[in-house]
């Protein structure tokens, strides 16, 4: 049996000490309980909402919003990225325009999306997709344009046509880059899911937090924040596990 690392205990102690300080300050009313409810109150709200099941509806709503928007961004991003990364003509046609649009904050698309689609889920999805497309698009372009020359020669020797080359050589070779891009995109998708919920009063955790503030239920607000943190953490780690599993072949060679 390995003994427990003292640093891990210290790390836990540090986090607990922070929470305890906050608790004491709140109990003594040194910080306003309206803004900073004691952690025990926030926690009890969280536990109560998990137990009575009322946390799941907004959690699932935000989660699905994030996933659908991310999936849309991934599909379009990989498609455009593959085109740009493998064809000089597509690159010259598209890249200048994309470079110009890319720095635009995705939230700035909200007003336009609202004009066209109203305060709807479609609006939310299009904004999420717009914002989350860039990391995966850039990563795909990089992946497709940096296929090793030897692999190109192999495909020439085997007489692959363009489609077979893209499918059998370029895509697998670009896959590590694409997955790295997908992870960044997922984090952006969660942010934009929260933003569009706040802006358009769509159901989900973002809206719950917003509403909790409006009615001064700050314990609910903190409970929502914690859930969002858990969700971001879980989504990122799920994708990291997936990455490790899918890219196992790479570590075998390296």
């Amino acid at each position, binding site marked *: 049996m390995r003994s427990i690392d003292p*640093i891990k205990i210290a790390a*836990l102690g540090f*986090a607990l000490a922070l929470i305890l300080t906050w608790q004491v300050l709140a109990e003594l009313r040194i910080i306003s309980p309206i803004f900073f409810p004691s952690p025990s109150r926030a926690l009890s709200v969280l536990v109560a909402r998990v137990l009575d099941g009322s946390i799941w509806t907004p959690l699932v709503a935000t989660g699905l919003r994030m996933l659908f928007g991310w999936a849309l961004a991934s599909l379009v991003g990989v498609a455009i990225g593959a085109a740009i990364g493998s064809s000089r003509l597509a690159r010259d*046609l598209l890249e200048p325009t994309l470079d110009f*649009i890319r720095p*635009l904050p995705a*939230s700035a698309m909200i007003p336009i999306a609202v004009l066209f689609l109203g305060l709807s889920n479609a609006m939310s999805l299009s904004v999420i997709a717009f914002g989350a497309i860039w990391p995966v698009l850039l990563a795909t372009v990089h992946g497709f344009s940096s296929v090793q020359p030897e692999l190109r020669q192999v495909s020439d020797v085997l007489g692959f046509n363009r489609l077979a080359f893209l499918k059998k050589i370029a895509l697998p070779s670009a896959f590590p880059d694409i997955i790295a891009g997908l992870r960044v995109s997922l984090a952006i998708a969660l942010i934009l899911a929260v933003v569009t919920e706040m*802006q358009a009063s769509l159901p989900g955790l973002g809206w719950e937090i917003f509403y909790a503030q409006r009615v001064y239920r700050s314990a609910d607000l903190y409970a929502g*924040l914690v859930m969002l*943190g858990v969700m971001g953490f879980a989504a990122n780690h799920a994708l990291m596990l997936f990455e490790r599993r899918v890219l196992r072949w790479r570590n075998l060679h390296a």
Partner: protein
Amino acid sequence: MRRIVLGSILPTLFIAIWEISSRSGLLTLESLSRPSDIVRAGIGGLTDGSILVATGQTFETALLGLTFAAVAGIIAGAVLGLSPVLERVVNPTIEALRPIPAVAFIPLALMMFGFGVSMEATIVAYACLWPILIVTISAVRAIEPRLLEVADILEMTFAERLRKIILPAAFARINVSLRVAAGIALVVAVTVEIVLNPRGLGYSLMLAQQSLRVDVMYAQLLWLCVIGYALNALLRNIGPAAIALSRASR
């Protein structure tokens, strides 16, 4: 050259079709203005100063938040980078806070500060803190240990150490993280303004949409593209220049 010609084909075609179809009455959607009207609205907004004032407000807040994040992130990063034990103690707390989207703090910041500069700058600072902090930690950890031994022998204080050894040695990488954070700062500032803070470019964009001044809205969106593009280009060129400067001054 080929790139400029080919690259301008799609946008030109798009704008031409848009303009022609809206003039000929094919396109009567209220959500679409005409490109020529948008340009006119843009020039109007620039000459009467309304766009520039809003831009100034957004930049002011973004810069304030970025500065807070840079000071806090570099100091904390230096402390944690110098002490691996402390870093391992604090790291789980950092990892627990980092995944919370910065925008989720908007309601909280509103409750604490009300509308205005401070709530927006706080959110910007939160969002910018993490990249700066994490890069600084690893940059400081990668400093040649003998340099730090020199600091020990000279019995430098922490402030001296930070100024004379750590910052120059870790400058290149910290600088990269500051550039990343600068991009984040602008995006977050505009986002906060769009969601609720009544000032800056994001708010005037929302206002134009809500009062159905579609031409003004598109003009401001175009302006956002322009300044975002300019900022990116600037940061890309500042980086190498600053690194060259820091090498030259050594």
